[in-house]
C-alpha cells in the first residue's frame, strides 16, 4: 500500500494534527475530530456545519473559514461521523441564529446527522438540514437510498457560506442551499480504485484499459465497467446524463466544476475541462464561473467528476463573495 501514513487507524487523527499545524486560523478539537473556524461562534451569523467520512479532502475541513463553513466533523475514512460530533459542533458554532447541517445523501450520514439534530433540538439550538443528492449516476427512487451527494456539496458550502456571512436567517440560508442542490447535477468516472488504509488493498480491481462509469466518492463500484476511452468520449459520457437530467437548456449560465478524485493530476483535469467546455458551448450553455481541481476526492482514486450548477445572478454573486479557507480562497 503506497501511502504516506503511520498506523492506518491513526490516519484521520494525524491528518487533523497536520491541518491544525498548517492553518493557525483554524481550531481543531481533536477529541471530537472537529475543525473550527478560529473565530466561531459568530454572533448573529447562522452557523454552517458539514462533515462526513474522511478521505475526501479538502472536503470538508479545507472549506472551514470566513465565507464558508464554521465547522467540519470528520468521520473515519469513508465512515460518517457520529452524532456526538455534530452535536458538539452545533453547540459550539451557534451564534444565536441557528445552525445549518449540510449532509451528503448517504444512509450513514443522513442517520447520524438526524440523530445529532434530534439531540441538538433538546439543547434548544435551532437546526435545519440540507441534504445534497446531485449524482445522476444513481437512479433516484423512493425504493433506493436515493442519489449520492457529491460535487454539488462543494459549491453549496461556498454559496451557503456567503449567504450566512451576509447574516441571512437560517431559513434563508437553508433555502439558498436547497436552491444550489436543486440546480446541480454531477457524474463521475474512475480509472483506478482507491485503497482504504485500514483495508490495505484496492477496493476494486480495474484493468489498465478499463474504467468504472458512474462512481461515487467511496470506492463503491460504479454503474458499469467499460473499456477505457479518450477524454473526449469520457466527457460525453459524463455530460450526457447531467445535461439530460435537470435538464440544462440552451442559454443557461452555469458554474462548471471539473473535480479530481485524488490520484489524477491537474494537467489531466485541465484537459478534461477543455473537453467539457467544448460540449457545453455546443449546447449553448454558458460557463459563468469554473472550478478545476481536486476538491472532493476519494483517497488516491484516479478519475474525475463533473458538476454543473445552473446559477442565477444571485448564486453567482454569492459564489464571488470573499472566502478564506485552506482550499478555496479569494477576495481576502
Amino acid at each position, binding site marked *: 500500500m503506497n501511502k504516506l501514513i503511520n498506523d492506518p487507524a491513526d490516519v484521520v487523527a494525524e491528518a487533523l494534527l497536520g491541518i491544525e499545524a498548517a492553518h493557525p486560523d483554524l481550531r481543531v478539537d481533536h477529541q471530537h475530530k472537529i475543525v473550527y473556524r478560529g473565530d466561531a461562534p459568530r454572533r448573529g451569523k447562522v452557523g454552517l456545519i458539514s462533515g462526513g*467520512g474522511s478521505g475526501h479532502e479538502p472536503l470538508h475541513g479545507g472549506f472551514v473559514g470566513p465565507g464558508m463553513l464554521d465547522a467540519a466533523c470528520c*468521520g*473515519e*475514512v*469513508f*465512515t*460518517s*461521523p*457520529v*452524532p*456526538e460530533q455534530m452535536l458538539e459542533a452545533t453547540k459550539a458554532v451557534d451564534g444565536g441564529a441557528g445552525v445549518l447541517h449540510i449532509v451528503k445523501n*448517504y*444512509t*450513514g450520514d443522513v*442517520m*447520524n446527522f438526524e*440523530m445529532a439534530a434530534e439531540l441538538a433540538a433538546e439543547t434548544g439550538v435551532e437546526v435545519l438540514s440540507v441534504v445534497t443528492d446531485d449524482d445522476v*449516476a*444513481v*437512479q433516484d427512487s423512493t*425504493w*433506493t*437510498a436515493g442519489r*449520492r451527494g457529491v460535487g454539488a456539496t462543494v459549491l453549496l458550502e461556498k454559496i451557503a457560506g456567503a449567504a450566512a456571512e451576509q447574516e441571512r436567517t437560517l431559513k434563508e440560508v437553508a433555502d439558498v442551499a436547497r436552491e444550489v442542490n436543486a440546480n446541480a447535477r454531477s457524474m463521475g468516472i474512475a480509472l483506478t480504485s482507491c485503497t*482504504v488504509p*485500514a*483495508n490495505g488493498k484496492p*477496493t*476494486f480491481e480495474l484493468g489498465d484499459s478499463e474504467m468504472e462509469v458512474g462512481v*461515487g466518492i*467511496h*470506492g*463503491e*463500484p460504479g*454503474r*458499469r465497467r467499460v473499456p477505457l476511452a479518450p477524454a473526449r468520449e469520457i466527457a460525453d459520457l459524463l455530460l450526457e446524463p447531467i445535461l439530460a437530467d435537470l435538464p440544462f437548456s440552451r442559454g443557461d449560465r452555469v458554474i462548471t466544476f471539473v473535480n479530481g478524485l485524488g490520484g489524477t493530476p491537474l494537467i489531466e483535469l485541465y484537459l478534461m475541462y477543455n473537453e467539457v467546455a467544448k460540449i457545453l458551448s455546443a449546447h449553448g450553455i454558458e460557463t459563468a464561473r469554473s472550478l478545476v481541481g481536486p476538491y472532493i476526492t476519494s483517497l488516491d482514486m484516479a478519475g474525475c467528476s463533473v458538476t454543473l450548477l445552473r446559477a442565477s445572478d444571485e448564486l453567482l454573486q454569492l459564489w464571488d463573495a470573499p472566502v478564506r479557507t485552506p482550499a478555496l480562497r479569494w477576495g481576502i
Partner: protein
Amino acid sequence: MTDGRISIEQLTGWLLEFARLVTEHRDELTTLDAAIGDADHGTNMERGMSAVVLGLGGDTVGALCKQAGMTLVSTVGGASGPLYGTFLLRFGSSAGDATELSAAQFAAAMRAGLDGIVSRGKAEREDKTMFDALAPAVEALEAGAGGSLVEALRAAAEAADKGRDATVEMLARKGRASYLGERSIGHQDPGATSAALLVRAAATTLA
C-alpha cells in the same frame, strides 16, 4: 421456550462473543463491503465492538444494552453505527430494569431492536440489508415460544444464516449497495453477514 432464563452475565457474554466474532470475521466483512460498498464494514464493527467490550457493565439488562448501544452510536458512524446502536438501545428499553430475561422477554427485546432498525433505516424485506438476516431470526425466536430456548436459538441462528445467504441473490434497495443497481446481485450483504454473527453469538452464549 420454557426452560431457562438468560442472566445478565450471559448477555454480557453474548456481546463479548459477538465482538470476538466480528474481529475474527473483520476482513471478510470488509471484503464483502468492498464488493458492493465502501470496504469498511469490518473495520467499523470492530472499532465499535472493541469500544463496547471496554465499557461493558450495568446492573440491569436495560443499562447493559443501552450502554452498549450508546457506545456503538458514538464510535461506529456510517450506516451500521446508528442501526446496531439503535438495535441495542431498543433492546435495552424493552428489557428495562430486568436482571434476567425469560426466553419470551428475549424474543420481545430482539423484536424491539429490529423495529428500531426499521424505524431508523426504513429497510423492508429483501432490500438486501442486515434486516434480511435479523428478521427471520426474530421470527424463529418468536415461533419457538413453545419449545426450548436452546432449540429456539439454534433455529434463530439457522434462520439468520439462511437470510444472510438469501441476500446474495437480492437486488439492493437500501444503503450503498443500492447505487450498484443490478450489479449488486450475486454478492452477500456485509450487514446481513454481521447480523448473522450476532445471532450465532446468541446461540452459543445464551443457552
